[in-house]
C-alpha cells in the first residue's frame, strides 16, 4: 500500500486499528455535505424500517444504519462517470449517488414510481443514469459483474473506475476468489470495498472466515488491501481516494476493508440472538454521525446545534419521500411482461408463454390479451390476494418482526385492515421456517 508518514492507533470495539487516515478535514462545505448525506441516509433507513413495520413494504428489508460513513465517504470521492455496484443493503448507496429518496422509497413500497417500477424491491435498487449499477440479492453475485464493468471501461479506453462493495460474508464465496484473480490478472480498474460489519447474517466473522483480517484475504490472488475505520467518514474518504487513484492511474485493483457495524439486525426480521446488546451499545459510542458532528463543532467548522438543523432538513425530505411512495400507484397488471425482452419489430416466435388462462397467449402480448374479460378477471383475481392479511403469505420470520430490530408489530396490511399479530402467541420462532437467506 501507499507509504503513510505516521500512524496512530484507532480504538474500535473489534480491536485496535493502526491508521494514519482521517487526520485533516476537507473544506467546510464538503464537511457539511458529508454530514448532511449521512444524516439523510440514517433518517431514510429509520423511516424505511418504520414503514416496514407498518407493512408498507414486503419481503426483506436490510438497513445500513451505522454504516453511513463507509457509504458516503466512498461516494464522495468518486467521479460521476465511475461505476458503483453493491449488495442488497444499498438504499443509502443509491441516495449517496444522487438518486431521489422518493424513488428509492417507492421501490421499497413496490410502486410505479420506484427505481425499477416495483420489479426489484428493496434489494435491487438501480439508477443507471447516476451509474449506480445496482443492488444485488445474491451474496457475492455482484463481484463478477463489477469485473465486467471495469473490463468494459478498460476496453473503451476510459479512465472510469468501478467501486464494488460487498459484505464480509461475500468474502467466502467462490466469486470472491475468482473475481480477485481475474481483476489482478487483467489489471482491471476496480476498488473492491468490503463493508465488514462483523457478521455474515447472524454468523460472527470469527465463525465464518478463517482469515479475519479481510484486508489480507485477497493478497494470494494478487489484490492487496488496506483496513480502515469505516465509522470515520474522513478516514474512508482519504483511503478510498487513494485506492481510486491506484485503479485509475496505476491500473491496480485493490481491496479496502472498512471496519463498520450495523446497529439493526441483518434484516428487519432479525431477532439478533447472536450478539450482545452491549456490543451494539459500544459501537454506538463511535456513531459516524454523532462523532463527525462533534468533530466539526470541536474544530470550529460548524456552530453548535448544526446537526439539529441538518436533522430538521432531512426530516422534511424523508417524510416527503414516504408520502410520495405511499401516493404512488401500484404498477398496472398489464405491465407484467414489460422489459422481459427487447422485442424485434416483427417476431415469428413466442418469447414468453402465459398459461394463467385456459387459452395461453404470448406474454409479450399481455396488453392485448388483457382486453379479454376472462384474462383480465383472472389477473385481477390473482392480484386481489395482495389485499389479504399476509402473515401466512410472508416468510414466518418476516411476519413476526422480531427482537431488537422489530419492536413494533406489523399491525396493518396494505388494505388498512387490522392484522392478526402472530408474534403475540408464537414468539418462540421454533417453527422451522427458514431465516432470511444470505
Amino acid at each position, binding site marked *: 500500500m501507499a507509504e503513510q508518514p505516521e500512524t496512530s492507533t484507532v480504538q474500535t470495539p473489534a480491536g485496535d486499528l493502526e491508521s494514519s487516515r482521517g487526520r485533516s478535514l476537507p473544506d467546510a462545505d464538503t464537511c457539511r455535505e458529508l454530514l448532511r448525506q449521512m444524516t439523510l441516509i440514517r433518517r431514510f433507513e429509520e423511516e424505511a424500517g418504520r414503514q416496514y413495520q407498518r407493512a408498507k413494504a414486503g419481503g426483506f428489508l436490510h438497513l445500513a444504519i451505522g454504516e453511513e460513513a463507509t457509504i458516503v465517504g466512498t461516494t464522495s470521492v468518486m467521479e460521476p462517470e465511475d*461505476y458503483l*455496484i453493491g449488495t442488497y443493503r444499498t438504499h443509502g448507496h443509491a441516495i449517496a449517488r444522487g438518486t431521489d429518496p422518493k424513488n428509492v422509497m417507492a421501490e421499497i413500497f413496490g410502486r410505479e414510481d420506484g*427505481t*425499477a*417500477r416495483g*420489479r*426489484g424491491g428493496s434489494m*435491487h435498487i*438501480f*439508477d*443507471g*443514469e447516476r451509474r449506480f*449499477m*445496482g443492488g*444485488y*440479492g*445474491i451474496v457475492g*453475485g455482484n*463481484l*463478477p*459483474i*463489477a*469485473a*465486467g*464493468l*471495469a*473490463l*468494459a*471501461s478498460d*476496453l*473503451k479506453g476510459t479512465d472510469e473506475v468501478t467501486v464494488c462493495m460487498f459484505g464480509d460474508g461475500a468474502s467466502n464465496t*467462490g*466469486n470472491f476468489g*475468482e*473475481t480477485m*484473480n*481475474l481483476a489482478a*490478472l*487483467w489489471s482491471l480498474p476496480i476498488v473492491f470495498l468490503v463493508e465488514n460489519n462483523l457478521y455474515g447474517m447472524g454468523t460472527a466473522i470469527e465463525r465464518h472466515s478463517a482469515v479475519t483480517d479481510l484486508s489480507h484475504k485477497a493478497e494470494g490472488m494478487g489484490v492487496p488491501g488496506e483496513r480502515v475505520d469505516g465509522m470515520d467518514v474522513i478516514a474512508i474518504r482519504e483511503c478510498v481516494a487513494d485506492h481510486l487513484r491506484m485503479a485509475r492511474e496505476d491500473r491496480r485493483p485493490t481491496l479496502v476493508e472498512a471496519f463498520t457495524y450495523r446497529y439493526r439486525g441483518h434484516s428487519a426480521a432479525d431477532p439478533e440472538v447472536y450478539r450482545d446488546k452491549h456490543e451494539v451499545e459500544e459501537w454506538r459510542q463511535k456513531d459516524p454521525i454523532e462523532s463527525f458532528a462533534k468533530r466539526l463543532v470541536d474544530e470550529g467548522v460548524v456552530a453548535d446545534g448544526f446537526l439539529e438543523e441538518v436533522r430538521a432538513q432531512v426530516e422534511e425530505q424523508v417524510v416527503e419521500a414516504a408520502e410520495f411512495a405511499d401516493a404512488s400507484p401500484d404498477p398496472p397488471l398489464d405491465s407484467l411482461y*414489460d*422489459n*422481459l*425482452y*427487447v422485442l*424485434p419489430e416483427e*417476431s*415469428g*416466435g*413466442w*418469447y*414468453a*408463454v402465459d398459461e394463467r388462462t385456459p387459452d*395461453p397467449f404470448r*406474454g409479450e402480448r399481455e396488453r392485448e390479451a388483457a382486453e379479454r374479460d376472462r384474462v383480465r378477471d383472472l389477473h385481477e383475481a390473482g392480484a386481489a390476494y395482495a389485499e389479504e392479511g399476509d402473515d401466512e403469505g410472508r416468510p414466518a420470520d418476516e411476519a413476526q418482526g422480531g427482537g431488537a430490530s422489530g419492536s413494533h408489530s406489523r399491525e396493518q396490511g396494505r388494505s388498512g385492515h387490522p392484522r392478526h399479530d402472530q408474534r403475540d402467541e408464537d414468539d418462540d420462532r421454533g417453527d422451522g421456517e427458514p431465516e432470511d437467506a444470505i
Partner: protein
Amino acid sequence: MAGTTSMRMREALNAALREEMQRDESVFLMGEDIGVFEGAFKVTEGLMKEFGEARVRDTPISENTIVGAGVGAAMAGMRPVVELMTVNFSLLAFDQIINHAASIPYMFNGQVRVPLVVRMPGGGGHQLGPTHSHSFEAMFLQIPGILVACPSTAADGKALLKSAIRDDNPVVFIEHETLYGMRGEVPDDEDVTLPFGHAAVRREGEDVTIVGILKMAHEAERAAKTLSEDHGIEADVIDPRTLRPLDLDTILESVRKTNRVVIVEEGWPHGGVGANLAALIQEQAFDYLDAPIQRVTGADVPMPYSKRLEQSAIPHPEHIVSAVLETTAGAK
C-alpha cells in the same frame, strides 16, 4: 446474388465471430483456451492473431466469473461472446446466467440491457461420459429473460450466431459437439442473418410432423427418408432453430395438416423440450390430433462412457421411425 461456400459448422461459427468483430468494435470474446489454444473445438481459430489479446481473451477456469464479467461488460455497452467449454460447465455459471443475465433487464425495469451471448457445445457421441456430454436445452428454455438458439446446420449456425451477437437480449447459444465437422453450404453475404423465432421446414409431407433439434434435426431427416422409401409415409420435418422465441405457429400449421406429431431431442424426457412442445401443441391443436403425441428422447440417465451404452442412450433414426409407425398405425 452472392454465392455460397461449403463450410464445416466450426468454420461457419468462426466466420460469424470474425465478421461481427470486424463490423462492431464492441464485440469481444472471452473463454477458457479460446485464444492461444484456439478453442477446445477450434471455433475461435485464428481470431486472437487477427484481433489481439484484448478482444480475444483467454480466461482462468472460473465459469461463473467469466459469465458474470460478460454480464457486467454487456451492461456497460459491450457485446461480449463468452465460450463455455461444454454445456456441463455452464452449471457452474447458473447463478450468473439465471439470477443475473436473465433477471437484470427485468428487475431493473429495462434501465440496462444485457446483450451477452454465451456459447456452449453439448451432446453425446464422443464418449466424453457423464460430465461432458449432456443436453441442457430444456433447462435454458425454462428461464424467462434469456433466448435459446440451437443451430443444426452450418448456414444456420453462422446466421444465428450473427443474429445472437446483434440481439439486445442475453442469448444461450447451444452447439452440438458432433456437428462441428459437418459441412453445409453457407451464404457468402456477410449481411445474411437469421431472425430468431423462425423454424426451418427441412422436408415436406402430409402424414406426420417430426420436430427435431440440433443433431436430432438430422436424425429426423434420415428417419423421414426411410419412412418414405420403406413405408410410404411422408413427413414434415421441422427444425425450430431457436427454442425461445419459439416458432410455434409453423409447428401448429404442420400439425393441423398431418394430425400426428413426433418430437425428437437428445436431452432427458422429464420436463424436456418435447414435453414442453407436446403441452403447447395439445393446448392449441387438440382437435387436430389423431393420435397421441410421441416423444423420442435420450435415455433418462447421466450419459454413460461405454461406446455401446452411450450410443444406445442417444436417439437414432430407428427410434424415430418406430415412433412414427406407432403414431400412424392404422392410418395407412
